[in-house]
């Protein structure tokens, strides 16, 4: 019967360093002879043969001096005379120690307990909850909520950066473009930016999953803006507060929007609004489709819906967080009540 040579815990540690071998595989060792020395600073343990016999080390993965040895690791065997050296058991190599071994593992059953006990509550990170509270959003009403993962801040705070897939799929007249604008001012897209920003400013408090701005061509030229959240603003009231000023149709804007709207229209620009973050560029993605919707008086009709996605980038290419950008934008708007009421 072979005697197994197993690495002990040195200094209470499950890992230690093999300092030296004092015998080689195949050597005859007498009881009490040194075999190897293991070190875990400041302690060193010398393994000695507990019986006389031939020392057999594994054919593979013999720890070399200086390498790490784990508690319980099989270092070799001592065969007393009469044992068959060829009849060696399989070598059990210790598993590689990776970062995974050091990670505190979560109990899946406990996670399930939490999920069951929570009932209808929506899992969300504290930041996401705070954002939702600030914007008076119901977590359960957040569209495209992850099925299993908890809501994160990005699901609520920067929805405009994520176009809605369903919108793209159903859109027969969908088109998307990018316009770049900065404070130095490319004049044509500026108009679009400003018009979009004004619309967004109405919907931002309850903004989620993109901003769907609905209007009819006459809606723009008449009196109302509509937002997906149902908030409406009288253009007259906005004009009275100095938030709007009428400009002539812009050529690029006309091209861009007329293509979607297939009718002439006018753009109302918010007065006093300039780009809130100097030397930054705004990238707008526009998408439009014609779909049934109710107009302001509740009548059903086909209207053009337009999706506006805005991202803001600094000159160095770093993305500016949406809420920072929006905050600056609101400051630009001043203290005027945007509700029009």
């Amino acid at each position, binding site marked *: 019967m072979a005697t197994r040579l197993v690495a002990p*815990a040195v200094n*209470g540690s499950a890992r230690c360093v093999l300092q030296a071998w004092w015998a080689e595989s195949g050597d005859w060792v007498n009881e009490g002879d040194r075999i190897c020395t293991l070190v875990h600073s400041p302690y060193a343990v010398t393994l000695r043969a507990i019986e006389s016999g031939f020392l057999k080390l594994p054919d593979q993965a013999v720890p070399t001096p200086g390498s790490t040895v784990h508690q319980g690791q099989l270092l070799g065997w001592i065969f007393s005379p009469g044992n068959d050296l060829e009849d060696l058991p399989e070598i059990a190599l210790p598993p590689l120690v990776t970062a995974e071994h050091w990670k*505190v593992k*979560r*109990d899946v059953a*406990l*996670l399930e*307990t*939490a*999920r*069951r*006990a*929570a*009932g209808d*509550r929506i*899992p*969300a*990170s*504290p930041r996401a*909850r705070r954002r939702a*509270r600030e914007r008076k959003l119901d977590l359960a009403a957040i569209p495209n909520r992850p099925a299993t993962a*908890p809501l994160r801040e990005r699901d609520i705070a920067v929805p405009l950066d994520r176009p809605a897939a369903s919108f793209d799929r159903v859109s027969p007249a969908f088109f998307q473009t990018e316009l770049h604008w900065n404070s130095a001012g490319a004049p044509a897209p500026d108009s679009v930016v400003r018009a979009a920003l004004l619309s967004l400013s109405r919907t931002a408090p309850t903004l989620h999953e993109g901003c769907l701005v609905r209007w009819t061509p006459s809606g723009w030229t008449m009196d109302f803006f509509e937002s997906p959240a149902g908030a409406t603003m009288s253009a007259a009231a906005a004009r009275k507060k100095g938030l709007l000023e009428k400009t002539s149709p812009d050529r690029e804007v006309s091209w861009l929007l007329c293509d979607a709207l297939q009718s002439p229209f006018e753009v109302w620009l918010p007065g006093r609004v300039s780009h809130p973050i100097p030397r930054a560029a705004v990238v707008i993605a526009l998408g439009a489709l014609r779909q049934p919707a109710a107009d302001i008086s509740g009548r059903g009709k086909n209207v053009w819906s337009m999706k506006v996605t805005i991202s803001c980038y600094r000159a160095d290419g770093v993305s500016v967080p949406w809420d920072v950008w929006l905050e600056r934008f609101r400051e630009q708007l001043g203290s005027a009540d945007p509700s029009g009421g």
Partner: protein
Amino acid sequence: MSRITYGEATVSVLLEKMRADPRLCLIGLRAAPGGHLQSAGPIVAKDFPKRVQELPSCERSLVGLCLGASLAGARPVVDLLPADWLLYSLGDLIYNVNPISHLTGGRVAMAPVVRALVGTHLSSGPFLSGTTRQVFRQLRGWRIGAPMSIQEGCAMLASALTDQQPTLLLEHRRLFELSEDVATYRPSDEELSDIWSRARVLTSGDHLTIVAYGFLSQVAFEAAQLLERQRVLAETIHLASLAPCDRQTLVASVAKTGKLVLLEDTPPQGSLLDGLLVNLLDYVFEWLDAPVLRIHNPSEPPAYSPALERYWQPAAETVAETIRTWFTKQEG
């Protein structure tokens, strides 16, 4: 039927177990019977004079003696040592008991029972209040219990004296003022089997979860009743066993309510419940609806003066008011 106090009830459990197990012995500080420490030594010594060892105030020797006896196969019980004094022996408790069991592959199993007094009461002051008990989190492999009633104290002690596992009982001084109309208290088998595995839900509620241990659970219970009158429904969870800890009950409750209050009579610079909280966050982080409210003692050392001492004793009214204010703010 006479009234029985916490001290008398636990001593009766101790005597009963000592009759049944000749390996049990008592090691305690030499103190007058019925004195401040309510030592069981003089009472037990009447029946088992050779199995009681009373020493002067030399805590390290006392614990060292206990561990040595444990190594030799005895079942020593350290009797009512103020938790602060255990700090002198912390190295022995941490490095000797559990590691020896591991290093010997379980062949040498030490199972001492240490009863430690905690709580600011009766002028225990800065040196006897056990306000630094958070260090006992380092006692890996130990069971740590904190009873809130006579029944629970007896059940935990009986279980500790029976099972082969090192056990630390944190017994609040105010427990010794409790009394009940029972002749003796014998914990049932069911109590003994559950006492280390189940946290007790004292009150049920949907609005918030209050977690406490030891005598503070009584305070939490009373606070929950006061809150209920103000339509704040608190689920009060009493952790009789801090290690092992019934995370199942805690996780289920916090996931349900979304708000967690930790109540503990230690300074805010670290506590036994803080360690639990870190562990708990692994499971309830996304279910929390508000920052965790921790209600603690002041960070200053407790005063001797009885007039000042009450500032270190959380009262149900104060706790309820703190929780109500916090809850109202969170609900906006």
